[in-house]
């Protein structure tokens, strides 16, 4: 797991801007001229007050939303002019998401939820897919819950399942939007520990939006967003 170059570029934002309702009287500029580069080995916290554009930035980076200015390079590939199909594919192959409200699909078992990105990609899971999913569940400490329905486990457990799901495709970039927002302190720490561990072991760049200053402080790099602009970008030793 350590053959990757820790400083390999995963994401680069060049003059990226986002406006809602562009060209109308309701136009609202949410992101201004964002410059940001993330590399494989980095665990980065994105902080900022409410309404500063953190979630919008995360959606744009996650290819769920498109920028209205600038360019977004994912693994060196420009993405602005890709059509929906290509963006969807890229999202499936290179990006893992963890959301605040767990967002598992309750109709499916824990194991199926973890396998979902792979099943979306190529249908029936292969033996090695299932083995990887079980390995990840083991890593997040939920191996014995594999066959439970997703809504039969606790919130903290669901969030750990969501992390396993985000990692099952071995993404280059893991995006987490306030993943510990409604978890107690102890569970939140466990979840963050998992981010650190997978960042180290899988070499996947992690970008976490968080409100919790203690957790932010535990990340090697902290990017602060205010009113849609990056106001500070600190890397601690």
């Amino acid at each position, binding site marked *: 797991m350590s053959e990757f170059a820790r400083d390999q570029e995963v994401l680069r934002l060049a003059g990226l801007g986002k406006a809602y309702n562009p060209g109308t009287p309701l136009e609202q500029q949410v992101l201004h001229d964002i410059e940001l580069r993330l590399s494989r080995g980095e665990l980065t916290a994105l902080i900022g007050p409410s309404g500063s554009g953190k979630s919008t930035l995360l959606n744009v980076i996650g290819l769920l939303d498109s920028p209205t200015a600038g360019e977004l390079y994912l693994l060196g590939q420009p993405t602005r002019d890709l059509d929906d*199909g290509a963006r969807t594919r890229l999202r499936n192959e290179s990006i893992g998401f963890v959301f605040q409200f767990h967002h598992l699909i309750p109709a499916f078992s824990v194991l199926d939820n973890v396998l979902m990105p792979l099943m979306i990609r190529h*249908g029936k899971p292969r033996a090695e897919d299932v083995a990887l999913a079980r390995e990840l569940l083991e890593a997040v400490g939920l191996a014995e819950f594999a066959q439970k329905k997703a809504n039969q486990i606790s919130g903290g457990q669901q969030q750990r399942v969501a992390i396993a799901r985000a990692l099952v495709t071995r993404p280059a970039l893991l995006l987490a939007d306030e993943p510990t927002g409604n978890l107690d302190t102890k569970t939140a720490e466990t979840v963050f520990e998992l981010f650190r561990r997978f960042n180290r072991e899988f070499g996947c760049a992690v970008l976490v939006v968080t409100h919790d200053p203690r957790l932010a402080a535990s990340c090697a790099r902290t990017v602060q967003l205010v009113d849609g602009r990056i106001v500070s970008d600190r890397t601690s030793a």
Partner: protein
Amino acid sequence: MRLIDAQWIEWKIALRFLADNRLQSLLIIVGIAVGAAVIVFITALVTGLQANVIQRTLGTQAHIRVLPPDEVNRVPAPADGAVALNLENPRAQRLRTIVNWQDVRDLLDARGELRAVSPLISGPAIARRGVARASVNLLGIDPERYQRIIPIAPDLIAGRFHIEAGHAVIGKELAEDLGLGVGDKLRLDAGGGREVVVDVSGIFELEVRELDARYVYLDLKQAQALLDLPGGVTVIETAVDEIFQAEAIAERLARLTGLKAESWMATNGQLLNALRSQTMTTQMIRLFVGLSVAFGIASVLAVSVVQRTREIGILRAMGSPRGQILRVFLLQGGLLGLAGSGLGGLVGWSLVQVFNTFGPGLFFIPVDPALIPTAMAVATVTGVLAAAMPARRAARYDPAVAIRYV
């Protein structure tokens, strides 16, 4: 199986969504089933009813009768410069033979659209036994050919269908009126001093009063002699395979032979009208029941799409293409249609069996083996079509918005 393999995840998600919304799925399946049962039952019932009516009507008459053309007055053209004032009376139509009927018969025999061809002579006579008299219709037939058009033998209630010189087969009503039994003598008087005494060899009952009281079947030659048309036939009766093509075929035959051709459709206008309006009513019922089923499926899926907004967002965020989401919901529509119509088909079929077993017993309803599979196929397609609108809506969700939906 290849299709299922290629869209494995769509099937998995669609089935899981349906199973997860158990009550909702069950209710709509029952709704579809009721509609499908109504369609299956009413289709079987009306098809059976119509087949029965047609069979009863056509069981005792030819599909097309070929007759000599009516006799008309010929008015010579007036000489140049002269004015002709004509007083014209329509001519009495005497009993006439079809000219060259053997050739016409051979011509008709060679036509594939005709299942059977039977020349016969038909004319009026008085039947007498002792002092009792009854007016009858003599039919001189070639028994073998005639039986292929109207099978008399199965309707015999006494004796046998034995047609040759000196023998006659008569109807039950006539036998009762004249007190005749098999082997008794019957005197037939065709007028003009032509009389003959025949043995009754068989008695039939077609359950049509007019026929049972008036038809007397004789040997062709004997009837020709009685009716004073030696070697002649007055009508050629035919049967076709496609009974509803009879009118079109009759028109062709008339042009081909220069004779008059009457189809059963022309002579049973009322019946045909009734059958047509029945068919139209059935089709209307089917259409409207089908529409209400389609709207039912569409509304259930529309609700389901809203309920699953967040899950659709999650799937899209994990890289599920729009097409995949679309197919998940189309599949649900198709599966609901298939399951509902399968159940409904079974219920409809059971209703038919109940009707056949415990019903009034007026007639038997057969169920066309293709009916239920066809209904299921149509319902499945309807389900997919009904799902189109909700499915498109689901596929168009903006994942960034959908995922925040609570």
